[in-house]
């Protein structure tokens, strides 16, 4: 596609570090030149001997949070998780992030939807809110409002479709997904919203190989 064909040839792009992220409470992190031997001098467990019992709590002091303990913490799905870009605790290499929406690629530019603020953390709403949801099986509504970079964006439906597909693939079945254009952000938001809300039309769109190809390409970047 030639540059002049783009709906918005020059969108404002945020750098990855500017995107909202979850800062996990971290301990006192030392990175100075003197920290070379910190693993020996200030070990997480005050005694590093081998234990037959796989219970680390015997050796860790009360306030040091162990990685295993975060595993056990019950944290319901919240807006930040749907948005994506969680900061994993340092040292955790495995599947560091669970990115749902912010890392979906833009169909026009080599940037993510988060970077051009099409998807915004503030525009993701869960009801009932995570705090009220005691039972994980409660029926929950996820409402995502998208903000196209220009109000005549012809790709708004494609982006909406990709967001919808991504959420359907990633959220458990008790989440009802509603994807819309933010009020006034698009010249034809009513029509687009109608299209995105119509199950039949969504299913029909996904039958279209070209469209499916575009969406798969957009979702390639979110792992």
């Amino acid at each position, binding site marked *: 596609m030639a540059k002049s064909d783009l709906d918005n040839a020059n969108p404002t792009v945020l750098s990855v570090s500017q995107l909202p992220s979850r800062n996990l409470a971290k301990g006192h992190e*030392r990175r*100075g030149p003197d920290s070379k031997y910190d693993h020996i001098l200030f070990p997480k467990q005050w005694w*590093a*001997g081998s234990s037959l019992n796989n219970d680390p709590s015997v050796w860790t002091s009360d306030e040091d949070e162990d990685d*295993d303990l975060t595993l*056990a913490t019950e*944290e319901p799905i919240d807006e930040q998780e749907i948005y994506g870009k969680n900061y994993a605790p340092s040292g955790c290499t495995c599947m560091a992030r669970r990115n749902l929406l912010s890392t979906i690629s833009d169909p026009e530019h080599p940037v993510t939807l988060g970077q051009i603020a099409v998807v915004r953390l503030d525009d993701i709403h869960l009801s009932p809110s995570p705090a009220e949801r005691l039972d994980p099986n409660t029926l929950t509504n996820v409402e995502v409002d998208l903000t196209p970079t220009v109000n005549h964006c012809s790709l708004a439906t494609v982006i909406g479709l990709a967001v919808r597909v991504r959420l359907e693939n990633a959220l*458990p079945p008790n989440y009802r997904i509603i994807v819309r254009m933010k009020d006034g952000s698009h010249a034809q938001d009513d029509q687009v919203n109608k299209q995105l809300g119509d199950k039949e039309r969504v299913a029909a769109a996904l039958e279209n190989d070209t469209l499916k190809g575009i969406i798969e390409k957009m979702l390639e970047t979110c792992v």
Partner: protein
Amino acid sequence: MSNFKDWALQYVLSDDETAQSEIAKKAAKEIENTRASSASVGSWAASIQPWITITKQDDDNSDDDDDDSGSGDIIARAKALGFLADTLEALDKSLLRPEQVIRLVGFFGAMFSYDHKAGITASAKALRQLYAMKGFKPAVGVKMIEDVCKLKEDFKLQTAATRLEIYELFLSLVQDQSVTNELQDKYGTSSGFIVDIIQLCQNERDPRNLMLWFKLLPIFLTEYSTSDQVTEEIFKAFSAYFPITLRSSATPIGITADDLKNAVRACFASHYKVAKLAFPFLIGKLDQGDAITVSVKLDILKTVKACVEQYDNPQASVVPHVSKIWNSLKYEVRNGEVKDTIDATLEVLRAIANRLDGTKAQKFSVSLLKNYIDIVVDDCRDDLANPTYTKQAGLLLMTVITTNIRAFTLESAAFVDIIRKNLRQPKSPSHTKDLLLLLNSTLKSRADLFKNRKQGNSEDEELFKTESKDHLVALYHDVYLPTWTSKSEETTSEVLKQVVQGLALLATQQTLRPDGQISLLASRSVCFEVCSLLIHTLTKGLALSQNDNSSDAAVEDEAVLALQSVVATYTDGYAELVDRAKVEIEKRDWTSPSKYTLNALQDILSRLAFIGCSRIPLNIALDDEPPKVFKPLQHFIKLAASMQDLFPLSPLPTSEKESLANSYVISALHGAMLHFRDACFEKFEPKVLEAYSGSDRNWLEEFQGLSKNWLHQLQGEDGSSEVVIKEDDPEVYREFLRISLFIVRHLYREAAHGKQAPWTERVFAQVANLAALVVRSLDENLQKSCNLAQNAFNFFFSEDLSSSGPSSVAPFRKLLILGILQGLRPAAMAELYAPQGIAETFMCDTSRMATVLLAVGEIRGTICAVLANKYKGGQSTFDPESETMKRVLSFWGEQLKTATNTDDTDPAIFEVYNTVTMHTLAGACARQDKNVLSLVPILHEAIASPGPNGAIVARTIGGLVKTNELLTSENHAVVKRFYKQWTYTHFAKPLYDLALPTGDEDTAFAAGRYTTAILSLVSNCPFEVYQEDLPALVRLLITALNNNSSASSGGDITQPQVATSLEVLVEILSHEPEALKEHLKAIITAGMKTYEEAAKNTNKVLARNLAAARKLTLQLLRAIPKKFEERHLLPYALPMQRMLAMASGDKSREARKVALLARENWAKVSA
């Protein structure tokens, strides 16, 4: 004589090179046999007449009509001449007489006039052979050149190989001194022959020939005195090729473009008489601007550099062109963007400065260098005030000024002055930063120049004695301090970092006193102020409140590095730092500090250790003071003594958190030792240090006569009583170990006899780790002579104290025993293993075991593991019958038997017993002690015993092969390479048959236990160990999962074997998925069931185990689609996708992440 004719004919008719050379050899032999009589040589030469005669006619014909009818004859003629050339090659070189040589040269030389088609290759070859003859006369050489030059235009029609022959002939001739003289005589400076040769060869294109051509041309310049005109002709001959490139060819010729470039470059740089042509030519090429590529630019710059460096008589050759070169080159840096070009340009500028300075043997007049630098300074001065060009201009200036010592002493003051003026009115924060960076780089270069001062001319060193230093010393008050204190917006964190770096560079500058002694450039007061400033940056953290954001970690870290280098030379600074930090720390109440304050304490103590001990200080006097006593260990001693004073910070801690402050003090000591050890290893070879890690004296005995305050005394000593150690003497390491051992002894005695309150578990552990470091660094003899094995148990007192003291603390004091034992070498522990000796008593001691905590049991067990591991029995040991270990093992075997066969032992207490047993066995297993095997049946029996204790054994048996950090070669442990394999074979293998369920209820129970035991062992072994038992193992794993994955059938999902089975399955899946192929259905069903069961369970206490089980199951399920073909998975895809959809709403975020990935993998299955 007719032989020659026959041979010639044979030669001409033959196409085989070997046959031809055979014929030539025969002919040569024949000539040699006749001692080269005129007759034989004559008939040999005449033998080719038939072909030559035709030639004449041929040539005449071809002049008239240019047809190819004679081509066959040309070939025959060429071959006939080749016969002569080959014969000459085979001929004895001393045989031909001078007149014969002359005649032959005449004959072959004539070919260059007459026979351009056939005669050249053979003639050139023949001439080269004749040149090598003894009868060759120089005058003949001149004739040869003249003859060959007659070829003229037809030269380029010759094949490349023929031309190569001619180049080689020329090269041999012009390199020959006698021929050279003859040529000079005949032609004088007009050097007509050179012009002829150049005209002959000027259109050469073949790379191989060019390499020779470029070798030939410099010889004309260096060996012959040529007129300006001829010089110009020669210059034109090679400069026409510049810049040279080489088209890539399908047939490699062994010559690269770089070879050609270097050859042309050598032509340019061969003699200074081309300087007046070369520099304008090269600069002209460079000034073409954007028209030239980077690689051409680099070629030009390298060539200029080669010229500058290699021309003799630089006053005449380089100086006249300096300003022209500079004017062209400065833009390459000022406006340049490509790093390579900038670097190459700076190299040229540096080369000029070095060339103008003189050589190692002789310095040139100072004005040459000064004029050059003045041009540079004048041009760059204004650019320094312009933020856009500050960096580039500074780079140019700095490069030139710091090239050599004379340049630096000449112009550094002016340069520093310009920077200083600009810093007073900076245009932007980045301008300030760039200027500071320049200043710092200048100081750094000065330090490098000082370090390498002896490598150049001897005058250089003298320059340091007389250089003016005031402008450098004044930098502190004029530049660094004002920048640091100004709170303007220019002082960003980056700027402050530069200031800190600059301060360090300034305070570490060295200079030479008039008497040749090295001293610090800055005065004591400046060094003191620099230190104060930096110290304040580090200590203020303690005084700040949590909400104060004025501390900047990056600047602090920079200050740490700065102080590290400053106190290595200005040694008084460290004492100041430690004292100031100590005062700050003592000001505070450490009984219940906030987390923030504790972090600040941790930082400052850790930094103190790093700053003072990570480098061995240097003995450098202060400029204005006489040398004073210097000890390379003074910083280490200062820190150790101060930490001794500080401990305990919190005398009566009531919780682990309150004891943190105390443990940080010990950590500082430990850190100091680690850093100092590193510093020693950096300075000396490991082998040298090994030799210095022992002593023939008993240090502990010496310590007995010393007071507790020995370290303080050492500090105050003027060195008269001690042997003075220099900083580059490896004795430093031995002394370091001695002081470290004193510290260990002091801490151990305090821990054993002093007030018990500050000695919490954490502090014990820290001290033990520190002791381990010191002990394992000592060599075997010293460990023995100090009797450290015994002292481990009596804490450096004369009686055994290991089991006395208040019981609430004493158990953890066992960590101290471990600290020393883990670092000992097996031979140094031999004494402990005497029958009924300390080791045996300790390992078989079950007193008070019923009342101790499991954690204490672990420590006790670990000591047993170390003792069991480093055991050695047999002749000439303290245990000649090798009975001790046997007894210990059978003792524990009995204990195990009793505890599992009866219900007398409470499982909670048995857990402690079992811990000690397993550890002891693990230590012996690592050594592959055969006595362990006697316990195999006992353990197997215990596992199957019906009581709960059997379950404990089954669950923990994996401890035998669990990797233990204390049993490593660094700790001198005896760890056999295949011990895990060995242990697995003896303990796990026999159980496989018994572990398979038979349906019988009696055996089912035992089978379950055996399964647990096998899984416990397997999960601690690498995959290769159990690889051959995979079929049986996989069945067991599936059974274990199935049995436990359903609460309704009495299984328990939280059982450890569930997690273990999942872990092992993931491991197998990643190494050998084929083994699981047949069981896919069972694994997937069991996995799904396990997940669902774990998700249903809401037991809060077991939340961690449940979450782990869920995550592991999902990890297993996630990996499956990647390892198997789709057809194997299709039947499970739908239910799996449904389950994973549910799982992506898992309670734990970690599990959800895995679920999402699993879902993606499985989504592809049905696609």
